[in-house]
């Protein structure tokens, strides 16, 4: 099995340890170490090739499954500045083509352009799966942001950026000035925060694991599984609010972190997914 993840990835690291404990051979490669730290070569038409790091070489046909946790190339500092954009684009294109073409299961198999920020790009698809998205506004018009904050969010909202480069920040009352007044310069995403209990659901294959609430119903679990499938994700994390009217989704991540509690259940499910070939094609 191949784990393609940065060294600090706790979910990947714990999964690797568990797979190794069960006697499964695991190859770990750091995506940010490519190119330079390891080599790849593959024939696109034949879907055959190799991965090679110092002291080892693995044929792509030997891979049983892959846990892919993307990272950015970090060795670009050694590349001339005028070449960095080119090298970065080539690395991205190479990894996408490679992982898309592997015959074995890949969790999560990447797609061109990435999933993007789901709440910005795929609210309709969540809704079609029975998962309501919290009232959300995407804008770079301060007046529109202020009006939404006042009339829809009741002056309490999560504020973030369309790219998702920063974690959503809870803004209340006058804190809005920092975010809303500068919307013209920095587009923002505002989300109303419904009353209720926050819950994180990790979908792993066809399973939905919720470790921080016992209020999550079967219908909500099924909706999360459907939504993950619609987004093409075998492994996904849903940030929900469980209110009186049911579950409302605030965010979906394709890179779930290892939860503080119940790590074993999550890791076991990821291992099962990788080991039993139950990954979606």
């Amino acid at each position, binding site marked *: 099995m191949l784990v393609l993840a940065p060294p600090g990835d706790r979910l990947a690291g714990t999964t690797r340890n568990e797979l190794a404990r069960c006697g499964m051979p695991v190859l770990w490669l750091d995506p940010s170490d490519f190119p330079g730290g390891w080599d790849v070569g593959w024939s696109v038409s034949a879907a055959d090739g190799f991965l090679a790091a110092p002291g080892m070489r693995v044929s792509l046909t030997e891979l049983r499954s892959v846990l892919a946790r993307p990272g950015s190339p970090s060795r670009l500092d050694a590349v001339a500045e005028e070449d960095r954009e080119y090298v970065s684009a080539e690395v991205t294109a190479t990894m996408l083509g490679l992982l898309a073409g592997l015959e074995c299961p890949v969790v999560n198999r*990447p797609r061109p352009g990435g999933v993007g920020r789901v709440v910005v790009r795929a609210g309709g698809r969540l809704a079609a799966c029975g998962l309501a998205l919290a009232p959300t506004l995407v804008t770079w018009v301060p007046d529109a942001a202020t009006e939404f904050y006042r009339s829809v969010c009741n002056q309490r909202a999560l504020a973030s950026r369309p790219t998702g480069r920063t974690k959503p920040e809870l803004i209340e009352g006058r804190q809005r000035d920092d975010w809303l007044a500068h919307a013209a310069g920095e587009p923002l995403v505002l989300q109303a925060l419904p009353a209720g209990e926050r819950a994180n659901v990790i979908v792993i294959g066809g399973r939905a694991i919720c470790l921080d609430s016992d209020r999550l119903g079967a219908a909500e679990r099924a909706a999360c599984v459907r939504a993950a499938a619609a987004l093409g994700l075998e492994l996904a994390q849903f940030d929900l609010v469980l209110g009186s009217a049911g579950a409302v989704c605030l965010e979906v991540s394709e890179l779930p972190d290892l939860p503080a509690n119940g790590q074993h259940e999550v890791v076991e499910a990821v291992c099962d997914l990788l080991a039993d070939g139950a990954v979606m094609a």
Partner: protein
Amino acid sequence: MIVLFGSLTDEPLAAVVVGLTDRGADLLLIDPGDEPAKTGLAFEPATDPLSGWLRCGERSIALADVSSVHVRDTWPIREPQSRERHAALCGLLDSWPTLVVNRPSAAASNSSKPYQAQVITSCGLAAPRTLVTTSPADARAFYDACDGRVIFKSASYLRSIVRRLDTGDLDRFDQLQACPTQFQEYVAGIDVRVHVVGERIFATEIDTTATDYRYAGRVGAEVRMRDTRLPDEIATACRRLADRLQLVLTGIDLRRTPDGRWYCFEANPSPVFTYYERFSGQPLTDAVCELLHTAGDRPIPALQADSLGRAAHQERSRAAPRPPP
């Protein structure tokens, strides 16, 4: 109402603006090169149908009033602020329940030619033998296996001039470890550019001696183009490719060998169709304008996100192997 994203300095967009204006269409042109304050966008992704509005200068329009969108360019992603505008707009374009030519998620397939090659073959078109590698020894073996008839070009969306590999390049193979490189077996033959425009298909035969006809002028070669007809199975495969990549408008690069075989290199999501129109006289601009202008009469091709990134694999997937007991 038709919304256009791009600059009038872009020849295809300028031609479409003229064509749609001649048809009496109501247009809103948003140029990402304009002063940022000139444009405004607000939309609510959680609403069904999607609600919001778009502003350019003094004019604001409701998203619901837009029957089609043509995207030639959006805000650049190099600067943090314009990157956020780009992300916001892509969010809208991917979820807007109207005809979008082309949606960003669909256009992104061109960011990886090796990825596209897999989709191409899954649609019944042949792709040349292709190697992507960081290994000098691997590249050398491929060069020898192809009897030295090899080209190299970028694997990404970045435009590069397709070049034949010569013996002098072999000395530079040690540089491969710094950047993965795509090599392809050189296929001799006649280039044919196919434009799929909605349901319509146009094939243009290109006659040149240059390896990359787009840059023929740089090597002193001439280019001639003419309208041609594709074999039915190739036309069907091209339509299938456009459909699978969810590209409403695409420029597909084919080559026909002297013995009648067809190879496909890539599908361009933002083709400069006016270049081919100028040489061939084919009514490409007219077809694009017709597609945009009559969009309200047809069902909207919604983005099928769960098929993206998996199209190639689905075709070739087999029962997943089980680990050893």
